[in-house]
């Protein structure tokens, strides 16, 4: 297909007089990793929140899988095929790893909270949800940790769980906000391999500070400064862009 799975046009978010995200346009395609980099406060996380519906945009347009989703609430965008992970680990700490993923998998079931049949079924009864959950568990590499409470996991494992929960919702588009943050070298390497594997079936937006990882993974790079896109190109072109170097990458990396 030649259509982008997710596309944003002139997406803008103003907080009072401050334009945290200013007229940002981007397209996400299947089998491509689109990385967004920029200094702290550049608006990367706000952009992610706009794309996922966690924040409503002030103006601009959002299309997901060919459908205009501008202004939709987060849960509806999620069900339309978007999955996201959070910069700050955002999981169900008292639940076990398996229950965290199971709950995520259940989100794709019929949502009928008023239906008494849904009060009397067993949560573990749905084979479709179980299949989604076990696939996500397998991919995350947390299988032998599945009966542990999420709160008992290491920081890196919690990041893995964060991704696994996102995968259990079987999204078309993945928004990953700093998936490598706070990970050790070995964990980071594992995660990079996982992301490369996921890339094949998903359109992926990656917000990341680890430049080595970004250049190892990204097919396309967007550089943001002060809410604005200052460059958007292939990694090689971005690396050579003097404008970007002075704004962000630092002179010596050239």
């Amino acid at each position: 297909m030649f259509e982008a799975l997710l596309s944003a046009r002139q997406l803008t978010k103003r907080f009072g007089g401050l334009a945290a995200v200013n007229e940002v346009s981007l397209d996400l395609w299947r089998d491509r990793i689109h990385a967004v980099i920029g200094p702290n406060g550049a608006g990367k996380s706000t952009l992610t929140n706009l794309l996922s519906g966690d924040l409503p945009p002030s103006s601009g347009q959002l299309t997901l899988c060919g459908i205009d989703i501008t202004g939709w609430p987060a849960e509806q965008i999620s069900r339309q095929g978007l999955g996201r992970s959070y910069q700050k680990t955002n999981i169900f700490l008292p639940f076990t790893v398996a229950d965290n993923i199971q709950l995520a998998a259940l989100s794709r079931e019929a949502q009928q909270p008023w239906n008494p049949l849904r009060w009397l079924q067993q949560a573990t009864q749905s084979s479709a949800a179980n299949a989604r959950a076990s696939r996500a568990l397998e991919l995350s590499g947390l299988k032998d940790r599945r009966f542990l409470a999420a709160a008992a996991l290491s920081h890196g494992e919690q990041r893995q769980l964060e991704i696994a929960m996102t995968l259990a919702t079987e999204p078309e588009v993945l928004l990953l906000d700093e998936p490598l943050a706070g990970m050790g070298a070995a964990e980071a390497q594992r995660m990079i391999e996982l992301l490369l594997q996921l890339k094949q079936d998903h359109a992926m937006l990656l917000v990341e500070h680890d430049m080595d990882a970004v250049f190892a993974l990204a097919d396309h790079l967007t550089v943001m400064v002060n809410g604005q896109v200052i460059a958007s190109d292939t990694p090689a072109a971005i690396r050579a862009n003097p404008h970007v170097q002075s704004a962000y990458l630092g002179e010596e990396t050239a």
Partner: protein
Amino acid sequence: MSQTKANIEVLPRSVQLLLVLGLLALAAFPYVGTDFYLQTVTRMMILAIFAMSLDLLQGVTGLVSLGHAAYFGLAGYALAFLMPQNEAASLWLTLPLAVLASALAALVIGFFVVRTHGIYFIMVTMAFAQMVFYLFFDNHALGGSDGLYVNFKPSATLLGVQLFDLDNKTTFYYFTLGALLLVYGFLRRLLWSPFGRALAGIRINEHRMRAMGFATFGYKLSAFTLAGALAGLAGFLWGVQTGYINPELMGFHMSAHAVMMVILGGMGNFAGAIVGAFTFEYVLEVFKDLPQIGSINLGKHWQLWIGLFIVLVVLFAPRGLLGLTQRVVQGRGGPDV
């Protein structure tokens, strides 16, 4: 991410055993207890149903309602209005209609209140309950501050045959025990349903639930309505037992007592709510019967003692009496998270 301390959802063997023993004791009680205590225990069971209905909101979904008594009282009033002056109305008519009245009120009020969070939810549920309270308190047509009499017990006839007689205190005792068991079994099953898991997810991290695609409003409203309906069942039974309904049943104290029962027993597993209701009522009786020492009548100040008691339980058994039982049996704290 606010709540990292887990509820006890899976009941440990020790607690299960305790519950079975408790059930046996309840089943055998009419054969050993006097008439007065039979009525007391019936009332405890009714309040246990009420406390369980609140636990669905407070313990499972994380919605602390300080106005839950409104739905308890409304069903009682519905029963009083449905009961004619000179003959008994059918149980099969009055029970569903009374429960429906509470459910409807909870649906309408819930539509507004479940949009709020935390402290605002507490305030708004309380405000709505006060409105309902004064609607009945100030309105003579609705019984006013005196309340209403329920002149007859509902008749349990089916096709002209009387199945049982709720006028008989022992029969009503077992009827209430049956309702208690049904509600407990239903809620325990619901806890492990997709609906129940979603409610628990909302308690722990509603933001993430929405990001994963759960339309949480519908879940919270359904829980609020269902909790209101079950509170209505308890209120209906109360009306049948006492034959009298007054606005106090919908008042702030009634709501607050239910919150305390749930905290006292241990939240989020329904067994705790039952234990809490029985303990609260028992302790209440004990404190009210305290003797006069010198010029101080200890029993008169029962509210002081019950307050102290709750403070002690919260300090030393933060997961309620069930959590304490688990800790005592297992030596020291089970899995802490």
